[in-house]
């Protein structure tokens, strides 16, 4: 809901285009209607406007922080543990056949 605060923006979108939003929706595999695109474009634009507060910071020499606690070389031994039960797992799948997960024809996955 916090994000809601950024969405109150009736200005024209200047930071992100409707085309870019449509492309991002494709990348994220989300079906969107033209209405969705218009709404999302305005909402994302409002958020990006807010995020401009860090634009003025001089970050040239700042090391990015990815991990809160510095650990290194965490590994396990190469020892087999039992598999999950196939029938239990496949019973929870939307579709299964022949001990495998069933999906519609695999086409149109590029881009």
């Amino acid at each position: 809901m916090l994000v809601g605060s950024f969405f109150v923006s009736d200005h024209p979108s200047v930071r992100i285009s409707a085309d870019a939003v449509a492309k991002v929706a494709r990348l994220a595999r989300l079906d969107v209607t033209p209405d969705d695109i218009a709404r999302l474009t305005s909402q994302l634009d409002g958020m990006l406007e807010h995020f401009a507060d860090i634009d003025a910071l001089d970050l040239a020499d700042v090391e990015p922080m990815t991990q809160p606690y510095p650990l290194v070389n965490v590994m396990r031994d190469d020892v087999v543990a039992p598999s999950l039960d196939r029938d239990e797992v496949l019973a929870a799948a939307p579709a299964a056949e022949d001990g495998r997960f069933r999906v519609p024809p695999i086409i149109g996955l590029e881009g």
Partner: protein
Amino acid sequence: MSETFMIEGYELVCGLEVHVELATATKLFSASANRFGDEPNVHIDPVTLGLPGALPVLNRRAVELAMRIGLALNCTVQPCTFHRKNYFYPDMPKAYQISQYDQPLNIDGWLELPGGKRIGVERAHLEEDTGKSTHIGGSGGRIHGSDHSLIDFNRAGVPLVEIVGRPDITSPDEARQYVTELRQILVAIGASDAKMEEGSMRCDANVSVRKPGDPLGTRCEIKNVNSVRSLGRAIEYEARRQIALIESGEKIRQETRHWDENDGRTHTLRSKEDADDYRYFLEPDLVPLAPEKSWIDEVRASLPMLPRERRQRLSAATGAAADGEAVMVVVERGQDDYVLAVGEAGADVARALVHVKEAYAEQGSEPTVPAADLARLISMETSGALTATQAKTVLAEIVEAGGGDATAIAAAKGFEAMDTSELEAMVDDVIASNADAWAKYCGGEDKAMGALVGAIMKSSKGKADGKAVTALLQAKRGS
């Protein structure tokens, strides 16, 4: 081989990306079994299936095998990280592959072809394999026109090392040599069984062509090459396709192409224009990997002698060429130690190489005869106690039985070397009773010698040494 490979005035530029499955007991990030050929979906766990809440934990053995590969390929092992490569595909459970991006484990190495040329290795990094899709309906299991697909996740999460070669390969033959040599190295160091036909070694080729002296041309990536033989074919086909395009004034499009074994062509898989946007970012569920120097040193010290060095060793011992057929095949089969052991047991090691090559390496079987038994046989052969033909008979028996005393077997068969006067008498008899053939032979028809030799061998019941007979016949003719 040293002359530049050219097609219609164009040079070939090729770099290979080879994926190998590591011979671990478990997957890269989880503890279910890494095993090929079982029932579908019997090696699955929350991590393999990308279940909500599942977290990866790195397999130490996989890291060690990846370091073995890097060190065997003369790479530098360095501190590294894991990234997520985000894309959707039904056999990719999390919709991202954990791979290495800008900081791979192994960088900057090379592989030396048997003839001495070095092919650069840019990097060799760790990543996880995908599951396997089977396409049902449509024609012949092809993805296009299929009715639906079925997914097996046994292979998902299996550890892979991707070995990215530099574009130093300039002929289809070099590509074949590179993959063959790499395969031998991987098997020798125990990193992978590297079977192209089972998919535990997979090869993609980046191919471009150019006129000598020109800058690099646009490259295409060829996928789905399933044997060393098709690799050469696919590269040559692709080079000719590109040349034809250029010659007809068209442009090469950078794209991924699929090799079709059936029609012997490459086909467009996807164009790089709608470029994949993988949104790489550092995998937050894993921490950096920085193998300690002591660990790297330990792995390096544990590497066995590599094929190239073994070929040189065998070549030095036998006098055969290091990239000659006998040395190549015997080392490839890992039978060079056996040849040397036979030599050490007192036999002529060059003769041992020939016998091992013929009896085992070329048959695709493993030596079972104790080195001492084979050595005794070879000694009898080289001292003249057995003729080459007799030696072959005894060898066949020993190989069949997995060992045996050549002296005893030869005695039991009544094999004993004929002395020279006995042989001369027999030759004279045969000449007398085959006057026609002798006349032809003396008249310059060398073919006629075969009939004479055959007759002598027959009357000696195989005891006569073919070489000695030939020498005698030549001497008697006076040539």
